[in-house]
């Protein structure tokens, strides 16, 4: 960018130090939890003084963390499974032109991302309390799906913006009906946006705190709720275990998705 200029070395050094500091600030929290999870200490500290697997063992046997992990994974899966098709249909419709209705539709579909999550949470809590659905799986599912919709919608809309709709015309001219065209032509070519949308919907649900706090409970307590309560009341080293699992899981999924995408230039 500055190829027309020469930069003096003290300035270079200062820029380098600044960049390294900001990078450290961004990275450190993600990185320190891994060694912390192997700490032997009762207290939470970094760097750990002694190492052990006791927290991993305890996590594995915990009747608090394990069910919450299962709930969260199931919830995230169901959220992605519903939010993605719904957002796909909406993105298709708004891309294929709905005339004047397009702008208000954008507004509605992006609303869950613009309304502060705390308001989504207490609003849902209020409505679900009337329906006696607080602490129920469907209640959590509704909240998470709605929060995942804008993410999935934006990714899929961007995908459709790059999609060549002549493909659809070609398919129809060759005799394929609407469904056949969707399944054989549109969806295969949208597989990367679909995969990204599914991944991010899954992560959005897994990461969601506030709706889970208000709407979850009992048998349907999510990982984030357990963690949040733990963090607020008493800093618990087991959170480091679940954080490590989390980071490894996401790193794996991201590597797989992006690795495949790089292989297949689209």
């Amino acid at each position: 960018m500055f190829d027309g200029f020469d930069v003096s070395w003290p300035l270079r050094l200062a820029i380098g130090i600044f960049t390294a500091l900001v990078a450290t600030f961004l990275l450190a929290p993600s990185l320190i939890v891994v060694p912390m999870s192997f700490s032997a200490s009762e207290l939470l500290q970094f760097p750990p003084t002694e190492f052990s697997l006791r927290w991993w063992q305890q996590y594995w046997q915990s009747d608090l963390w394990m069910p919450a992990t299962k709930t969260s994974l199931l919830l995230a899966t169901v959220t992605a499974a519903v939010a993605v098709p719904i957002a796909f249909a909406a993105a298709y419709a708004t891309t294929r032109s709905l005339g004047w209705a397009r702008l208000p539709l954008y507004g509605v579909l992006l609303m869950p991302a613009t309304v502060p999550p705390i308001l989504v949470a207490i609003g849902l809590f209020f409505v679900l309390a009337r329906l006696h659905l607080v602490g129920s799986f469907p209640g959590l599912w509704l909240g998470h799906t709605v929060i995942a919709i804008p993410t999935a919608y934006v990714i899929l809309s961007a995908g459709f913006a790059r999609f060549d709709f002549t493909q659809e015309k070609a398919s129809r001219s060759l005799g394929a009906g609407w469904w056949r065209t969707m399944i054989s032509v549109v969806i295969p070519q949208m597989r990367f946006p679909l995969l990204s949308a599914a991944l991010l919907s899954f992560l959005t649900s897994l990461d969601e705190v506030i709706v889970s706090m208000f709407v979850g409970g009992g048998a349907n307590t999510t990982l984030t709720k357990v963690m949040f309560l733990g963090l607020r009341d008493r800093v618990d080293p087991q959170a480091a275990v679940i954080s490590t699992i989390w980071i490894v899981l996401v790193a794996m999924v991201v590597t797989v998705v992006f690795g495949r995408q790089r292989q297949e230039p689209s």
Partner: protein
Amino acid sequence: MTLPAADGAFDNSALLRRDRKLAQIGLFGLALPAVLLVTIAIVVPLAAMFWISIARPDGSVSLDTYLRILSTPVYTRSVLTTFQVSGMTVLTCMLLGTPFALVMASAGQRLASILLLVVMLPFWTALLVRTYALSVLLQRNGLVNSFLIDTGLVSEPLPLINNFFGTIVGMTHVMLPLFILPVYAAIKQIDHNIIRAAASLGASKLLTLRAVILPLAANGIFAGAVLVFVLSLGFYVTPAILGGGRVPMISTRIEQNVSVLSDWPAASALGVLLLLSVGLVFLVTFLLRRSIKALGGSANV
């Protein structure tokens, strides 16, 4: 050229219009499930909240709750704190994020993609995990304090969490990637020849930065700042954990009103105020952009 109408030809415009309408309705139908879910889960609850905030027990409408909130110091302080925290977060993001984005944009391909990964990685780590890790680093006997004491910079551990400072650090950590990405994108879009031209015209680095790059990046900086500000206004998790109860935001007050005090009218009214603040920021942004465009202030804001 007009040929005579074929045998049995008729004006079919009404039928064709109906076909077009049906196709349009079909498209609406595809968008409907998403719209319905958002309506059930967000629009209806928000409408209910609004009603609760203005309804008296006897069903009449009043602004009592709002007057109560505006005259209670606990609430007015939380409004003030919310704006302070949000403003401060935007400021730190600008101070850290803009130079960082500049470095990213001017770095070579390899370094740039590493830095991009650095910015993206926090996205892939759970919000709670990051907040948790920050609290470990910043606690009384945490890494940061030990480092400061070991190097002799301070003699007593500094209070780095459960206060305003900790909240800002946490908020900045969450928001910084969201700020850097649009700024980076905006700087990347600048035509390199403009910078070369500035160099060939004899402009110094500082002048080029101030007179050429920053104005052209202003679009991204502005977008990033608005995004960070709006998200900060309603943020809950980080102030709740790293603020340690000493940084009362509107969001944490709403939570308390619901789960501790069961004061739904106050929670709803605060919610409406929060929503209005968000709406106001968007409105001001929109008007600002439009008036700048109307003034012919070029495409860079």
